[in-house]
Each structure stands twice: as C-alpha cells, then as structure tokens.
C-alpha cells in the first residue's frame, strides 16, 4: 500500500481489491450459511445431522470393523471386543461367490475376460472418438457375442459349457442389466416408431404393448417368467429360467426406453421431417439418416436413466430364486456362521449399486450438459 496518493487519468485507476469483509470465507459463510435466523437454524440443524450420522457410521464401517481373520460372526465379535463395528468378513470370505456366483472356480478366468471385453464395449460406446469409427463400432457389436460364448461355453472353442444356474452374483447382475439394455434398444426404437406411426394398426399395437408393460410391476412379469411362461409355449418345450427372465427384462426395459425415444422423436422440429420429404427420401431413409440420429442423441440421457432403473431392478430376480449379489449375501447370512449380519449385507450391496448407478447418472448429467451447449 502506498501512502502517497497518486493521480490517475479518468478511467485508469487500477482495480482495487474489495474491502476485506466482503470476500473470503467469512463473507461466504455470512452470505450462504447465516444470512437470516431461519437460515442459521437450518445450517446448524444440517451440521448436527451430519455430526450424528457420519462419524458413527465411519466408526462402525471402517474403524471398528473386521474384514480379515474371522471365520464366523462369533470370531468377529471376539476380535472387536467392546467396540461393536461392522463384520465384513463374510464378504471377504465369499468374495468369489459375490462376483461369480457358483461359476466353476477353474473356469472363472473366462468371466474375467468377458468382463474386460464388456468394459471395452462400453468404452467404445461411451467415448465419442471411438464411436465414430465404423470399424470399431462393428467390433463393439461383436464383442458381446464373444462374451456370450465365453460365459456360457461352447464346444466349438473347446470351452466347457456352464449351466446358467451356476451364474450368480455381480456376474448375473451384469448379464441381466447389460443384455437387457443391448437387446432392448433396437426393440424400443421399433416400438417408438410404431407408436407414432401414421399406420393405425402399428400405432395401436405398440401403444397397447407399451401401456401394458408400463402398467404392471416388474415383479409380476418375473413371476410370469418363472411360472406361467411354460403354459404359453408348445407342449413339452421348455427353456432356461435365466433366458426367460432376460426376455421379460428386455421387454420391460424396451417399453420404458420406447417412451424415452418417443419423447426424443417428438422434440424433433416438423421442419426436419418436411425437409427429409422434400429431399425425396423414403420413410426408412429419412428415419435412418435424419430423424433417428437426432432423436437418439436427445434421448441418450433418458436412456441412461432407464438403464440405471433397469440395473437397480435386477435385484428383483432374487424374489424368483436367482442368486444375484443380494441372493448370494442372503444365502451367506442364513448359515450358522454368519447369521445376523443383515445390516452389513444391505450396506455392502447398497454401496455396490450406488457406485455403479451414481457414476452412470454423473455420466448422463455430463452428456446432458454437452448436448445443451451444442444448441
């Protein structure tokens, strides 16, 4: 600070820092936390809430918890002594089951390879640069096929076939979630186009189908898959439970995604349709080249949202007896050794889903922002 007052020409005075009371953390706190009495009360209440929830949770989940070294809940308690923390040992000891279900141990490498391939596929779909290369995109379509053969096995490649009832845990969640979304996408596009089609029959059929599926709970559809579907098939024929569940889940998510895409189609200005007509494009050409690319782009956040919903809904398969991570965990805590650890189980499974779903919703948010700036 100079003591000498200098004279500046008009408009040339250097910018001075604001008065010390109006910047910095103090000012910020005064503006954001304690601007009025009610605000102060809310702030204090909020901080108190954090104080009574977060430290005890951290204490329970991390500081006082036991992960390795215990073979049963009793041993867990013995190790913990006075401080009752979480006993994560059953997760640690049954980690293999949580990830692979009852997939044969010596074949688990196949699942690992399939996981890596699936990760590649997802990366290709998500990263724009890779997505725009046609050859890579075709690869992305072939990879899931490879995953299918890897996981179910095929004598063609000398892989022992593994029955689907051995698949469980995270593997099962990913199978149901990912194949549900991949297969339902094309179906849902057809459904959405049918629903807004000018041909009344298509529109009626699509509407009935979509409204039916959206009108009933998924659990009832899964019950149908697990019990009634066999009535509808030719006498004596019969196919795998997991496949039946996959079909139901696919139809279910197709109906929901179709509505998202229909919203996207509705958002395309009529001028686009008219321009396509003016160019003399046929219906399919105009859809493929002009309308769908735009509509799908707008719908992506909604589709990701549906996918998050589908992914969470995969837990319902436990009700019809498939062993997803929740089912595996419930089997674990129903043994003598681990009985009574339900809170740990639910927290663990909740964390697993949270990590997946939260990152997906962040991705969708990011997309939304990107799409906004594009316009």
């Amino acid at each position, binding site marked *: 600070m100079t003591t000498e007052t200098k004279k500046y020409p008009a408009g040339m005075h250097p910018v001075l820092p604001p008065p010390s009371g109006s910047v910095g953390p103090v000012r910020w706190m005064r503006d954001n936390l304690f601007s009025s009495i009610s*605000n102060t009360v809310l702030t204090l209440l909020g901080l108190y809430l954090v104080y009574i929830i977060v430290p005890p949770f951290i204490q329970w989940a991390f500081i006082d918890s036991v992960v390795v070294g215990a073979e049963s809940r009793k041993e867990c308690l013995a190790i913990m002594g006075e401080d009752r923390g979480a006993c994560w040992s059953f997760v640690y000891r049954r980690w293999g089951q949580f990830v692979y279900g009852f997939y044969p141990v010596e074949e688990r490498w196949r699942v690992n390879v399939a996981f890596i391939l699936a990760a590649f596929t997802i990366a290709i779909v998500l990263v724009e640069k890779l997505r725009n290369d046609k050859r890579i995109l075709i690869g992305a379509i072939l990879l899931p096929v490879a995953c299918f053969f890897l996981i179910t096995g095929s004598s063609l490649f000398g892989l022992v076939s593994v029955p689907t009832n051995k698949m469980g845990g995270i593997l099962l969640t990913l199978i149901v979630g990912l194949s549900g979304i991949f297969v339902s996408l094309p179906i849902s596009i057809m459904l959405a186009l049918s629903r807004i089609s000018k041909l009344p029959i*298509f529109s009626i059929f699509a509407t009935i189908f979509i409204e039916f599926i959206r009108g009933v*709970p998924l659990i*009832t559809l899964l019950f149908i898959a697990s019990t*009634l579907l066999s*009535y509808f098939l030719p006498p004596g024929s019969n196919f795998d439970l997991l496949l039946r569940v996959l079909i139901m889940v696919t139809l279910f998510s197709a109906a929901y995604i179709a509505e998202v895409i229909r919203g996207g189609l509705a958002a395309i200005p009529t001028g686009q349709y008219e321009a396509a007509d003016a160019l003399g494009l046929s219906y399919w050409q105009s859809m493929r080249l002009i309308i769908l690319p735009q509509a799908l782009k707008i719908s992506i956040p909604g589709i990701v949202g549906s996918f998050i919903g589908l992914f969470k809904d995969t837990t319902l398969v436990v009700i019809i007896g498939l062993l997803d991570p929740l089912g595996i965990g419930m089997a674990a805590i129903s043994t003598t050794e681990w009985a009574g650890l339900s809170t740990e189980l639910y927290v663990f499974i*909740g964390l697993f889903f949270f990590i997946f779903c939260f990152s997906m*919703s962040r991705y969708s948010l990011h997309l939304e922002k990107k799409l906004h700036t594009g316009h």
Partner: protein
Amino acid sequence: MSGTKIQEKKTVTLGSLWRDKKSRAVIMQIIAVIGVLLFFGNIVSNTVENLDRLGVKVGFDFLTEPANYDINQTLIEYDSTDSHFKAGLVGLLNTLLVAGCGIVVATLLGFTAGVLRLSNNFVVSRLMQVYVEITRNIPVLLQILLWHGILIHSLPVPKKAEAVMEGVIFTNRGAYLPQPIPQEGFGWVWIALIVGIVFAVLFKKYANKVQEETGRLIPAIWIGAAAIIGLPALMFIIMGSPVEMSYPALKGFNYQGGFVIKPEFMALWFALSIYTGAFIAEIVRAGIQSVSHGQTEAAHALGIKPNFTMRLVVIPQAMRVIIPPLISQYLNLTKNSSLAIVIGYMDLVATIGGISLNQTGRALESMAIVLGVYLFISLSISALMNIYNRRIALVSR
C-alpha cells in the same frame, strides 16, 4: 417414386402393390394383424393344450371358496373362513393404503427437498443433494429390506418396551398409539366437517368473484381453513367430547388395544416414501428451474409482491412441468409397493398372487387378476393425467 407410380397403376401385380405407398401400408398392417393374431392364437392353443394335458381346469370359481388363511393387517373385517376374493380385496386395500400413505409422505419430502436443494444455504442444499443421490441410486428392494431389518432388530420386543408417553409404545411388532373410538354423537362432528369443507369451497369461489369484480382481496384460504377446523372442533365441544381413547396395554404376548402400525407397513412406507421422495425432489427442482428468470423479473417490474410472485407466477408455471412426471412417480410408487412380499406385508401380490395362488394352484387366474388390477390402476391414473394435460395445454394458449 411417387411420380412414376401413377402410370404403372394399370397393371396391378404384387410388386406394384408393394411399391405403392398406400397399398403397402395396408399390406403391412394386414401382415402385422395376422402376425399378432397368429402369435396370440398360438399362445392360447398352447395354453389350452398344456392345461388339457395336465388335466387342470381353468375358471374363477375358486374365488368363492374359503381362503382358510389369516392376514395380519386388514382394513375390512376378514376371517379365515372368508373367500379368496375377500382375501384379495384385503390385499388390494393394503396395497392402496401403503401407496396412498407413501404418496403423501413422498410428496411432502420431495417438495421440501426439491426447494431446499435450490436454497442459498450451502450446507442445506448439499445435504439435500446427498439425500437425493444416495437414495436414488440404491435399489428400492434393498431399502425396504434395510428398513425392515432396522425396525425389527433395533426396536425392543413388547415385554422390554417402555412407553414414550402415555399410550405411545414403539416395539418391533409395531408402533402402538392411543386410538380414539367415536362414541354416540360423533356423527355430528363428521357432518360439521363436511359443512366446513363445503363452506370453504363456496367461500373461495365467492372471494374469487369479488376479486375479479372489485379487485378486493379476501383471505379466503385462511377463513376456509378456520371453517374446516373450527366447525368440527366446535361441534366436538358441544357434543361433550364424544370419543373414548383406547390405550394399548400389554396382555400376554402382545400389546392389545389402541392403534397399531405394523413394522412391515412402516418399513415399506418409509422406504417407498424416501426413495420416491428423492425422485420428486429432482422433478420439483427441474420444475422451478424451468421457469425462466425473466418471469420473476417481469412480475417484480409489475410491482407484484415477492410472495405473490412465487404463488401466482412461478409456481403455476412450474406445476405444469412438475405434474406429469410427478404422477408417473406416484404410479411407480404404487407398482413398487408390490415388493412388499419380501418382508411379508400382505398386499395384493402376497394375497391373491401369493398364498391364494399357492393354495389353489390357480396360477393363471390369480396372476391375471393381479395384472388386471394393476393395469386398471395405472390406466385410470394415466387417463386422468391425459385430461389434466389437455386442460393445462389449453390454458397455456
């Protein structure tokens, strides 16, 4: 394409029919109809053949047979000698009860969280964000199980439970509350309540008319509320408090008397409300943010008070954005209530689609009933929503 078509029209072949846009549309639709009919015909014939092979008869006559099982939460009189139909009805009412209670709490929670999420208060808005993100991203099934586990493991058993206050006891078999039992003369209180509501509605209409004609504002809402609460209260005092309280008391194994909320109901109610509340919070936030800032500024420029700006300018516009997804969340909540079976809450799926199905072996019929009821609920709500949408669409022109 369409230019050449006209000349070719003379000779009608299959190919030319296909190339013509209109006839192709007809052909495709006919194919679709035949395909769908074949598909369903096939399903029906398979089903008939399968049932025939197993010697199973189809019919809804089992609904009149006695159900022979008990249900622990019944809104209407029910006994194990009642029919499967009545058991299903009890289940349906339980579904509607938990859905209704869930919708109320989820809405309150969602609107509060949605508004607070936009608060300038950093701590509060972050807390709301954490609430929304955590509950939205964890499967609701898990949340139901977690709440049920917390309730039955952390609350005391009846014998060890202590009353929080006179007649209020929390145990792991339910929360027991004193229950007012209306005595003779309580009917008048109901009548007073109805009169109060009718008065409030009419008064509001009158107030609106006065405001339109003279611009004078009458605090109709406050006066109406006073009528709705005051009239029955007055009548209650006049009739000499015609209620008797039934207090829960420990008799034998359990508390008897009073009003009880079962832990299964509570777990389902909490989980569904908290889960759906997070989605509603996001809808409300998006709704408020969708109203452009220019609207608020314009209202201010017109000299409308901030209070009225919110009520008359922002909220009505936000509601147009909020209501359609809000209704679909209500539907989701109702459908999610079917997860009740994992904790043994006896809803529609657990009664007619569960125990009745099992006892009678009528899987096809029972599931058809369950699907039909859910479809009916969903479609009637969608229909109402369409009417609403049409109305606000007209208003916006």
